């Protein structure tokens, strides 16, 4: 799992696009959107070790 260097292309563009998606959503819709996005992204990552490392890193003890 890479947490040292940014690999997202045009990271500010992605941050903006991600926030724009959420701006129009209620908290419930926002949570639903994130779940769909995470499963779509997980299918792109396609690496079990990376996925489990990301689950750990995103957890309360990871940040």
């Amino acid at each position: 799992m890479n947490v040292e260097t940014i690999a997202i292309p045009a990271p500010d563009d992605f941050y903006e696009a991600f926030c724009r998606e959420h701006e129009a959503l209620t908290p419930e819709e926002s949570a639903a959107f994130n779940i769909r996005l995470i499963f779509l992204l997980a299918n792109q990552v396609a690496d079990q070790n990376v996925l489990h490392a990301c689950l750990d890193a995103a957890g309360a003890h990871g940040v």
Partner: protein
Amino acid sequence: MIESTRDGYRIPTFATYAPSNEGVRTRHPVVVVGGGLSGLTLACDLAARGQRVVLLDEDDTVGVRGSASRGIVYAQKSLEIFDRLGIFDRIASKGVAWSIGRSLVEDEVVYSFDAARGNLSCQPPFLNVQQFYVEWFLAERLHGHPLADVRWGNRLTDVRANEDCVTIEVEWSGGRYEIDADWVVDCGGLNSTLRNRLALPTYPAKGAERWLICDVRFSDARPDERWTWLRTAANEDRAVWRHPMADGIWRIDFQLDAGDDTEPSEETCCALLRRLLGPDVAFDLVWYGPWASRTHLLDDFRCGRILFAGDSAHVFPPFGARGGNSGIQDADNLGWKLALVLSGKAPERLIDSYDIERRAAAVHNTRIASRSLRFVSPGTAQVRLVQEQVIALARRYPFAQALVNTGRLSEASHYEASAFIGFGGGSSVPNARIELADGRIGAVVDLFRSGSSFILLTREHSQLTVANAMLKVLSIGQGAETDIRDPTGELIERLGLSRHEAVLIRPDLHIAGHLDDVGQGSVRALLAKALGAGPPNIPWE
């Protein structure tokens, strides 16, 4: 045998066994306690292997209180075991074979599978039939066997473990008696008296969700497929399971409101069914009953000379039909081991492999079935949201369909490498069609119908003569020069014989290990390991 009519079914009633020499305590090699799927399969298996067996059952019929709805889906490995035991044809002519399952949201299919793809077995992937029919056919098989002593209406009331035997106290309508046994196998189910008398911990847990089974007779032109609705308006946006069974009866299983604990009545069932089936379908409610998921698991499936099989040892959520099918595989795993130990052909240590292999299988089944339960009945609002959004993805994108989990259906167990199983071994050999030496068309189980011999299948015709009554050496290939022919070569591939010279198959048709160098020494060593008589070369310790 008398057949009585209960719930529209014809069910046999068996005469109570009356002990002939009460007061004289007799000793038996094996006593099986409980005549459900595991106990009956084990007793049939032992008798087929030439081993005397006593079976105790507390009531006078098959099933639980007659036709109460129990297991209905029999998976391929179970069907292959039933073929070996000689009752598959009866089950197949009674039941409904199927391979296709579909999960739906309203009328939209969000996941489908066809388990017939890649099937090498003579048996279908699944066959649905009411559990009491399977038990009935097993019981009739036993009744005709001179080595089987079946005691209907004889109930275990107490058990004492002695140093070299187990004493069982039995009650029947005419009194009580005691018997001794070298080995006792408890197949007494969820609330086993024997297990409870020993006060062994099972760590029971009960799920919060509630379901209602309705077994319903009605005619339907729909194909014989397993349909599961994750949500349907006909059940207030909850799940409904729908399986065909024998006699034109369907099992329809309604997910209820978990917060509503009113006892369902016949009226409740009929109202739910009317809404699901529509106003014009005539139906007849055969049986109904509410249920919730339970789990329990014994720490050790062996306690001295007492062994535990089926629901007495382990209970999982029912998703994936892993309960009955794992009990049948427990029996299949244990029968040959007991037969060989009792006839002095294998050391007692072989029995330890039963706990190693079948407890690991139970842990695996618990994990797989609990995941399905989590998908179908999310425990919290957050987890429900995850489930709903995964379903939303599945409706739109094919990749997400694989995440829809309404039950991953029972498959043959795979046993890990151990003191008894060589590296790369442990998988089950499919009951593939083969051509036998005399030109007859047969199947793999035909090589294993009686006794408890191992079979070494070699790629080349082998001059190997191993002076061991427990081993048959046969060559397999595609040409006319081999003992067994596999015309398509698919079985050879599945057996690992495209990479190895030989494969040793146990009496339960699981692979004991492979050999790259076939000789007296290597064959003897692998056989000794599989019998628990080899050097303690234990990679997992």
